């Protein structure tokens, strides 16, 4: 093992962050690119199921809140794309991998948002699961990824709170609203558990990721923490989690819970979820239809460079 790798391993052992121009094993670079880019893709694709309800939010306040949340997701995607870029891959290649199907994104976004209550369930459960994962990742070994996570975590808390609040309001409403609330929870619970990935024993990337301190807690650990948290929170809603095996275990000091439908998990991961095609089509469409905007912006910048108009205001000032 040559010196550079020894130095790298020492940094990992001593909790010293790895920065973009530091030496790193090729596999470390590649696995970070994979994880950070897929995290970024998840944020951007995640805008789609919620974006669908902006025009149908029940009040102006809810509409403004949902717009702000979706804007945050765009911002989160951008923090992560820029962190990914520091690893030596271009933005174009990263986007291309998403469109070609080579890169994945979180399978949760391949489910449809059927009712307004889904927006609440997503905020509470999906963002809740994301927060659990992201708080863990603020200690990841790659510097730019960790810093992006810190920034994201600060913003994510409002996402979960607004989701829970939506469900809380519904849970105190008419019979119809209560039923809608329970139905959304019923449909989003298991997919949210799937967000934590396969069992540790089936997770091919986990061992190396833990060794390199990219991942700080295992899939099953995080999933257990999430179940414990939600099992308590659901009581405040007066709703039920759709798992008849959910039960407090005094010995383990954790909730026991049922087995995930792994067939469904792998099927959706492989691309056969209810909305996989729709999501990717929407992304490709946005890219294609945005081409004229990118070209126009570039052309305008050229024009402005050629004949600058100093009297025109704008955001610029000599620093």
């Amino acid at each position: 093992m040559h010196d550079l790798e020894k130095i790298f391993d020492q940094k990992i052992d001593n909790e010293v962050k790895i920065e973009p121009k530091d030496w790193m094993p090729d596999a470390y670079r590649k696995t970070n690119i994979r994880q950070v880019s897929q995290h970024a893709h998840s944020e951007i694709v995640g805008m789609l199921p919620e974006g669908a309800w902006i025009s149908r939010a029940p009040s102006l306040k809810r509409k403004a809140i949902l717009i702000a949340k979706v804007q945050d997701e765009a911002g989160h995607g951008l923090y992560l794309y820029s962190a990914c870029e520091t690893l030596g891959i271009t933005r174009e290649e990263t986007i291309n991998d998403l469109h070609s199907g080579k890169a994945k994104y979180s399978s949760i976004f391949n489910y449809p948002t059927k009712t307004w209550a889904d927006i609440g369930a997503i905020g509470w459960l999906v963002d809740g699961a994301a927060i659990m994962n992201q708080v863990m990742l603020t200690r990841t070994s790659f510097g730019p990824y960790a810093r992006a996570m810190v920034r994201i975590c600060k913003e994510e808390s409002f996402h979960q709170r607004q989701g829970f609040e939506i469900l809380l309001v519904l849970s105190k409403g008419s019979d119809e609203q209560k039923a809608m609330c329970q139905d959304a929870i019923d449909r989003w619970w298991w997919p949210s558990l799937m967000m934590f990935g396969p069992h540790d024993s089936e997770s091919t990337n986990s061992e190396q990721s833990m060794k390199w301190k990219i991942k700080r807690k295992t899939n099953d650990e995080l999933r257990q923490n999430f179940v414990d948290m939600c099992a308590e929170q659901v009581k405040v809603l007066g709703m039920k989690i759709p798992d008849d095996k959910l039960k407090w275990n005094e010995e383990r000091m954790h909730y026991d819970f049922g087995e995930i439908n792994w067939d469904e998990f792998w099927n959706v991961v492989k691309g056969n979820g209810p909305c996989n095609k729709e999501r990717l089509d929407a992304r490709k469409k946005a890219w294609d239809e945005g081409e004229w905007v990118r070209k126009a912006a570039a052309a305008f910048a050229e024009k402005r460079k050629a004949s600058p108009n100093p009297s025109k205001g704008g955001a610029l000032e000599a620093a």
Partner: protein
Amino acid sequence: MKTFIKKYYYGDIPDDKAGGNELKDSKTPPSGGRGADWPLWEVFIRSKQGLDHKHVGSLHATDAQMAIENARDVYTRRMEGVSIWVVESKYIHASNPEEAGELFEPAVDKIYRHPTFYDLPDEVNQM
């Protein structure tokens, strides 16, 4: 005199010196035709009057004005900024991390630069 300090431009620390293998740029254009080539900018935000600008990340934009506006949208949604600096990434010059040992060596053995090096009587120790 031996030159310890070599100037490296951030963008052109050669791949083999940067460590590991940087991935080759993809030659295949993204689906739907070539995206316009927008340069990469580094963003610095001053969060409050009196504080320094801090590096927060990077983004692509066609020119400085767009970079500032995009930086505002990406990095200051919660009033985290009173001032934004953007610099094209290619203009950031950085020291080579592999030569950090040599570069920063002069400071290592000069502990007399620290106040704690000086043992003073109690009456004046709050200096």
